[in-house]
């Protein structure tokens, strides 16, 4: 494709003609699902087009976002981190949203939609557990039973979230097949969905999967960027750069959408660089993957020469996924967003820096966005930077136990 083709694609995205009726974001997207699900996908697509623009639905959604989720979430200036980095750093605080991450924006929206569509039961997958908790909470709020599939490795490393899901009344099913993380949990959730595509509503947790999910989730998460832009304009001005971590890509797409048309704002998606660049050591799909088809969508993926999906690694369960939302694949292709990586160690260091300088404990996922921003700030002095703080780190305490705080990085020395 030529540069003009890319520009035309990007324009189509901006003016809303993408995704098209087939759910394509240019070459990416689509609906690669078992035939059994096609009628459900069609019903869902019709439901999305009917309810998302509906005044009454929007009123209900906005009311839940404001009064139950706690939106708008704060925009926080980070003065001490700014000093340290030589930048003007701002956080968009999804960690303050109900249940502790941006995931709730999506789950309450989809739970209301499921209710409108007459679903009897919600099925969801979860990696870090944040989407599981957010699903359990939203289902309780609207009064639908909820089953959450979670890889057994994630069940172990995100134990606090498992307990929270139980408490919120959800059934949590540990998945022992496949790689026993998010990817297998999605496989399993789809299997459950297929068993009763009419009664079940599959509440997908990121901007991935078959159309209309990438579109639906993006629309529900776009509130992040919309709010952040308004708040920044009120308090300072447009950012020079904005950073968000990219697992499936829902918080990132939500943040980016607020700024897509602001060409002066450079956009960066930060993927999990894990332990290194070798296949299997990271989850850096866009940075090192290739196009393929997984979980219903044509997108960038990590797979081997035989087409087999690769096991991935990240210290952060929420980024530990070999695929990515198709819209990100497009944004990379057309060059509007640059996708970079932060390693496990860089993310951990950024987490501790944020704790000790700003008194905010970010999720390990969000710490990747911080680490990416820090790298960029070092090469671009004095810029205004927005970081998507997609969630809080409470859920990560069991993992962090393996990485004791370096005391010398504490706030005392840090002030020096």
């Amino acid at each position, binding site marked *: 494709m030529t540069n003009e083709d890319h520009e035309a694609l990007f324009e189509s995205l901006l003016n809303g003609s993408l995704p098209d009726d087939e759910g394509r974001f240019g070459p990416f997207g689509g609906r690669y699902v078992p*035939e*059994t699900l*096609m*009628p459900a996908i069609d019903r869902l697509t019709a439901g999305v087009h009917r309810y998302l623009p509906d005044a009454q639905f929007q009123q209900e959604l906005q009311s839940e976002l404001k009064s139950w989720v706690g939106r708008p979430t704060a925009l926080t200036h980070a003065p001490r981190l700014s000093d340290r980095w030589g930048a003007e750093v701002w956080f968009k605080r999804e960690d303050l949203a109900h249940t502790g991450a941006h995931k709730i924006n999506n789950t309450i929206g989809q739970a209301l939609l499921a209710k409108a569509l007459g679903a009897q039961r919600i099925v969801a997958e979860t990696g870090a557990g944040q989407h599981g908790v957010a699903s359990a909470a939203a289902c309780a709020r609207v009064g639908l039973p909820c089953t959450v599939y979670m890889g057994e490795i994630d069940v172990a490393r995100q134990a606090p979230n498992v307990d929270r899901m139980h408490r919120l009344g959800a059934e949590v099913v540990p998945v022992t097949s496949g790689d026993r993380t998010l990817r297998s949990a999605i496989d399993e959730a789809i299997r459950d969905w297929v068993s009763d595509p009419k009664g079940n509503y599959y509440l997908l947790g990121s901007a991935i999967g078959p159309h209309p999910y990438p579109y639906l989730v993006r629309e529900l998460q776009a509130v992040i960027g919309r709010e952040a832009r308004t708040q920044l304009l009120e308090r300072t001005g447009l950012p020079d750069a904005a950073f968000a971590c990219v697992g499936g890509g829902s918080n990132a797409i939500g943040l980016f959408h607020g700024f897509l048309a602001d060409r002066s704002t450079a956009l960066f998606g930060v993927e999990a660089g894990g332990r290194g660049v070798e296949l299997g050591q990271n989850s850096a799909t866009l940075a090192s993957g290739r196009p393929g088809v997984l979980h219903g969508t044509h997108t960038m993926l990590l797979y081997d020469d035989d087409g*087999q999906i690769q096991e991935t690694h990240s210290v952060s369960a929420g980024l530990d996924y070999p695929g990515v939302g198709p819209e990100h694949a497009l944004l990379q292709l057309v060059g509007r967003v640059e996708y970079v990586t932060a390693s496990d160690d860089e993310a951990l260091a950024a987490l501790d820096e944020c704790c000790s300088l700003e008194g905010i404990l970010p999720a390990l996922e969000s710490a990747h966005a911080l680490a990416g921003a820090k790298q960029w700030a070092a090469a671009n002095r004095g810029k205004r930077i927005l970081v998507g703080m997609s969630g809080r780190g409470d859920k990560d305490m069991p993992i962090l136990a393996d990485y004791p705080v370096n005391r010398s990085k504490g706030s005392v020395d840090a002030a020096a």
Partner: protein
Amino acid sequence: MLPRDQLSDALKLEGRPSLVAFFTAGYPDRDTFLDVLKEVCSAADAVEIGVPFTDPMADGVTVQRSSQVALENGVSLGWIFDQLAGRDFELPAPVLLMSYLNPLYAFGFEDLAERALETGVSGFIVPDLPYEESGPLKQALDAKGLALVQLVTPATPKERLAKLCSVSEGFVYAVTRTGITGSSEGLPNDVSDYLAAVKSASSLPVCAGFGVREQEQVRRIAEHADGVIVGSALLEALEAGRSPREFLESLRP
């Protein structure tokens, strides 16, 4: 005759239902693949060779298990083609490949069709490729006269059923129940109505599968459909060390 027509001919039998047998390539052992294939081919009217995939989202535990073991055994699409190319026997029944899309995509659709034709493969079943997304693959297969089999399900609306039946090649794969492969719940009560509807929408043979394990089920299906597809039950027979031929023959009414 084009491979896809040979396939439909093989499945439209007078007087008895045809039997389509599915097994995962290289399962339980890699070394016995051709032996198993030969034996299954001799007992079935068509054979689906499963290409293992890491994320078999439409499959139940049996196929998942076989897929995982096959992958551990080093089975890949390329290896399957090599095996087929190197065999020293004729295939008494047409052979299809059943694969999720990504291994095919990674192979490249042009190369795929080429290699399939060379090695005697008649067509493909791709469980995560609905008709709407099938354009590029279908184009490559059509160029070689290979079948891309469409699936229909009890949830498929009437119009869509007509459409899928009209574009399918080789046969129509009628999924008997919503859900994944390998169910042991038996056939739904309304399976007759459903199969009758598929049959009347299709000019190709209709073969019904998902959860077929017993002769009695084959008999019920045969009242309305042209054939049955047996997968998980065959894999379980293989696991139990039973002769595949014997097992398959035990299903025939």
